[in-house]
C-alpha cells in the first residue's frame, strides 16, 4: 500500500510540476507584460499587446531579435507591442483555426489564397471603423482598386499584399542555349487575344523543336507548381472567379464551365503534343521538385512562370543559370489574383485598433517592412553601396538566424530593400506603374462564398485531382480523357456550383450597379 501511495504521490508530483512549470511561465509572461504596460502607462497611454500569426517557410531562431527591434519602434510610435508567432506555411490554415477556436490570442492573420474561406467562417473582422483613421496610410498606398478585392458587402475585410501584381505568364529559357543555337524569342508577343496566345504557342512549338534538337538530353518544360504548367489554366482576359470551377465568360456576364470550352481543349492539344514529343518532363504530373532545381541541375532548359519584371534576375540569383524571360500573356488582375496574399484582423481580436495601427505601419513604414523582410540590420543584413542589401560578413544563407526572404509577403514590398548586390533598384517604380496600367477584370471585387455548395466542391476537388494534373501537364491524352473529366465534373455537381456562382455574381452586380 505504501508503495502505491508513493507511486501516486510521484504522479501527483509530476502533474503538479507540469502545472507549476506553466504557471511559472504564465506568471513570468504576465509580469513581464504588466511591467511593460506600467512603463508604457507612465509615458503615455497603455501599450497594447497584439499577436501576429506570422507564416514562415523555415525555422527562424532570430525571430525574437526582430520582434524586439520592431517593438522598439512600435511601442514608442503607436503604443503597440507585437508578439511574432511563427507558424509553418504548410500548416498555417489549420494552426490559425485551432488558435482561434481554442481562444488563444491572435490578432493579425495572413491569407494565402483563402480570403473567401476565411470570410465564410467569419475569421476576419471588418476594417471599416478604422480604415479612414488608423489605417488611412495603408488605404492610401493600396488604392481603391486593390481594396476592392477585399471588399465584401461594402466592408473591407483585409489588406492585400502590395507588390507587383501584374504578374504575367512568361516563358523562361536558358540564355546560353538560345544564343549558341541562334534561337530568338522575339516573335513571342504579349498576347491580348486568344488568337495571339495560340500564335505564341505555335511559335513556342518551333522553339522547343530547335531546343530539343540542340539539347536532346534536356527537356524544355517542367511544372512550376506541382501538377500544372500554368499555361493551360489561363488565357487573355481570364477570370477564374476564385477557383476555376465556373469561370467568367469573355463578355463578363456569364459564369461558364472552362473545362468544356473550346479554348481549354485547344490548349490541352498543345500540352499533350509537347509531352509526346518529349518537350515536357515525363514525371511532370507527379513531381514535387522545384522547377529551379531542374533548371540549375541542367535537366530542363526552361519553364513557364507567372511573374512580374525582374524574373530573369531572380531566377539567376536562385539557380546561377542565366535565362531569358519573355512575357507571353497580358495579365488580368482579378479579385483572387489581388487578394491571394494579404493580411486581416482576426474576428477574435480584442485589440482591433492596435492591430490596425500595426498593419498601417506594415504598409507605410520602411523600417517595419525591412525588419520583417530581412531581419535586423547589422545582424541579418547590411546595406550595399548600390542601395541593395546582402548578408553581413560571415553570415550566409545556411547560418543566418533569420533569412526568411519573404519580401513578397509582408505588407508593402515597395518599401523593402532589394536583396542581392547588383540588382536593379529602380524596378519597384516600374512594378507600381504596371499595377496602375494593368488590365483589370470587369468583375473585380466579386468574391464568391462556396459554403452553399461545399458538398459538391469537395467532390469536384477530388475529380480535379484525378484528371487535372494529368491533362494540364500533357501526360493524359485529351482526346480520350477530357470527355471523361467533363463527365466526372458534371456528376460531381459542377453545374450546381456554376449556378450558385452565377446567382452570387448577379446579386453582386446588382448591388454594385454593374
Amino acid at each position, binding site marked *: *500500500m505504501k508503495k*502505491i501511495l508513493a*507511486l*501516486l504521490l510521484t*504522479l501527483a508530483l509530476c502533474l503538479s510540476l507540469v502545472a507549476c512549470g506553466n504557471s511559472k511561465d504564465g506568471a513570468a509572461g504576465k509580469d513581464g507584460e504588466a511591467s511593460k504596460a506600467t512603463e508604457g502607462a507612465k509615458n503615455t497611454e497603455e501599450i497594447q499587446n497584439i499577436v501576429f500569426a506570422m507564416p514562415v517557410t523555415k525555422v527562424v531562431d532570430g525571430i525574437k531579435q526582430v520582434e524586439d527591434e520592431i517593438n522598439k519602434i512600435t511601442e514608442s510610435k503607436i503604443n503597440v507591442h507585437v508578439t511574432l508567432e511563427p507558424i509553418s506555411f504548410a500548416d498555417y*490554415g*489549420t494552426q490559425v*483555426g485551432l488558435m*482561434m*477556436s481554442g*481562444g488563444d490570442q491572435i490578432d493579425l492573420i495572413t491569407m494565402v489564397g*483563402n480570403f473567401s*474561406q476565411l470570410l465564410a*467562417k*467569419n*475569421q476576419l*473582422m471588418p476594417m471599416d471603423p478604422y480604415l479612414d483613421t488608423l489605417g488611412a496610410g495603408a488605404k492610401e498606398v493600396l488604392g481603391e482598386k486593390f481594396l476592392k478585392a477585399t471588399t465584401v458587402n461594402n466592408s473591407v475585410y483585409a489588406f492585400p499584399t502590395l507588390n507587383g501584381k501584374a504578374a504575367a505568364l512568361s516563358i523562361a529559357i536558358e540564355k546560353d542555349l538560345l544564343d549558341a543555337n541562334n534561337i530568338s524569342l522575339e516573335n513571342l508577343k504579349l498576347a491580348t487575344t486568344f488568337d495571339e496566345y495560340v500564335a505564341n504557342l505555335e511559335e513556342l512549338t518551333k522553339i522547343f523543336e530547335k531546343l530539343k534538337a540542340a539539347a536532346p538530353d534536356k527537356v524544355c518544360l517542367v511544372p512550376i507548381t*506541382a*501538377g500544372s504548367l500554368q499555361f493551360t489554366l489561363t488565357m487573355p482576359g481570364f477570370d477564374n472567379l476564385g*477557383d476555376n470551377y465556373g469561370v467568367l465568360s469573355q463578355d463578363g456576364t456569364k459564369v461558364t464551365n472552362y473545362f468544356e470550352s473550346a479554348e481549354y481543349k485547344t490548349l490541352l492539344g498543345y500540352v499533350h503534343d509537347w509531352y509526346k514529343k518529349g518537350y515536357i*518532363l*515525363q*514525371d511532370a*504530373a*507527379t*513531381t*514535387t521538385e522545384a522547377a529551379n532545381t531542374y533548371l540549375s541541375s541542367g*535537366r530542363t532548359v526552361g519553364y513557364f512562370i507567372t511573374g512580374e519584371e525582374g524574373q530573369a534576375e531572380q531566377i539567376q540569383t536562385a539557380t546561377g543559370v542565366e535565362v531569358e524571360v519573355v512575357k507571353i500573356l497580358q495579365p488580368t488582375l482579378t479579385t483572387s489574383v489581388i487578394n491571394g496574399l494579404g493580411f486581416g484582423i482576426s*474576428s*477574435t481580436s480584442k485589440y482591433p485598433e492596435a492591430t490596425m495601427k500595426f498593419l498601417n505601419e506594415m504598409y507605410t513604414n520602411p523600417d517595419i517592412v525591412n525588419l520583417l523582410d530581412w531581419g535586423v540590420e547589422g545582424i541579418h543584413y547590411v546595406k550595399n553601396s548600390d542601395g541593395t542589401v546582402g548578408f553581413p560578413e560571415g553570415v550566409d544563407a545556411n547560418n543566418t538566424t533569420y533569412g526568411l526572404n519573404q519580401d513578397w509577403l509582408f505588407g508593402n514590398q515597395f518599401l523593402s530593400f532589394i536583396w542581392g548586390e547588383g540588382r536593379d533598384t529602380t524596378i519597384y517604380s516600374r512594378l507600381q506603374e504596371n499595377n496602375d496600367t494593368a488590365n483589370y477584370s470587369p468583375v473585380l471585387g466579386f468574391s464568391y462564398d*462556396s*459554403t452553399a455548395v*461545399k*458538398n*459538391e*466542391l*469537395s*467532390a469536384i*476537388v*477530388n475529380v480535379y*485531382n*484525378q*484528371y*487535372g*494534373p*494529368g491533362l494540364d501537364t500533357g*501526360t*493524359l491524352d485529351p482526346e480520350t480523357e477530357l470527355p471523361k473529366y467533363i463527365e466526372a465534373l458534371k*456528376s*460531381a*455537381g459542377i453545374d450546381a456550383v456554376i449556378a450558385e456562382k452565377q446567382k452570387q455574381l448577379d446579386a453582386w452586380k446588382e448591388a454594385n450597379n454593374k
Partner: protein
Amino acid sequence: MSKTTTKREKILWKRQIPLFLMTIPGCIYLMINNYIPIFGIFIAFKNIDYGKGIFKSDWVGLSNFTYLFKTKDAFIMTRNTVLYNLAFIIIGTVMGIAVGIMLSELRGKFKSKFYQTMILLPYLLSWVIVAYIGYAFMSNDTGLLNNTILPKLGLKPVSWYAEPKAWPFILTFVNIWKGIGYSSILYLSTIIGIDKSLYEAAQVDGASKWKQIRNITLPLLKPMVIMLVIMNIGRIFNSDFGLFYQLPMNSGALYPTTQTIDTYVYRGLMQLNDVSMSAAAGLYQSVVGFMLVIIANSIVRKVSSENALF
C-alpha cells in the same frame, strides 16, 4: 456455509482495492487525454463560425456528413479501404507470425540482433521519406527501376504512377515492408515468454520442429492474434494516410486503386479547410468500426469466451 462465503467475499473486496488503485493513474490519463476531447464530437454537427466561437456556432444536423455519400466515388473509396485493410490484416498477421517464429528459433545472438534491427528499420521512417524512396525507384525520369533495372532485364520502362493495376501489389508490399518489423517483434515478445519446458517435453516425445510450432507456439499465439485482429477490425474504415496519399505521389491516374476514405476527405477539404466536415468523416469511420468490433467481439465471446476483448 453462508458464513464462509461472506467471509471470502469480504477478503476478495479487500483484495480488489489495491488492484483498483493501480489502475488509477492510467485511467486518469485516458480520461483526460481521450475521453474529455470526445465531447468535441459535437463539432461534426455544427457549422463553425470562428467569430462566435465553436460552442456558439449554429447546429446543422447531419449536413456535414452528406459529402461522404453523395458522390459515386463513395463506393470505390469504401471498397478500397475495406479490401486493403482485409489484405493487410491477413497477410500482415501471417507474415508477422512467421517472421516472429523464425526470429525466435534462430540460433546465434548476433544474427538475431542483426536481423531484428534490420527488419525494424523501415518502421522508423516517416511516410514522406518512404514516398521519396518509392519515387527514387519508380519515377519515370530518374527512377532506379526504369533507368537501370528494367533495361538490364530487357524489359520496357513502366510508367508506375500511371498504372493503377500495379498499386494493389505495391501498396500491400510497402505496407508489409514497413510494418513487418514491428509486428514480428510483437509476436516475438510473446513467443519468448512461452514456457520453455513445453518445448523440452515435446522434444523428448520426438516432435518435429514443425509439430512443435503447430502444437505449442501457434495455439499460444492465438489469443494475441484474435486480439490484434479485433483491434484492426475496429479501424477497417480508416487507412494510413501516408501510405495512400504520399506514396502514390497524389497521382490522379491511380485513384481507382489508391483512393480511400481518408484520402478522399483530405483532398475534398483541401480547399474548404472545414474542421466540421473532417470531424464528421472521423465520426463516421469510428461508428462503423465500433459496430464491427462489437459484432466481432461477441462472435469471439461465443466461440471462445476467454479470448474476447471485453
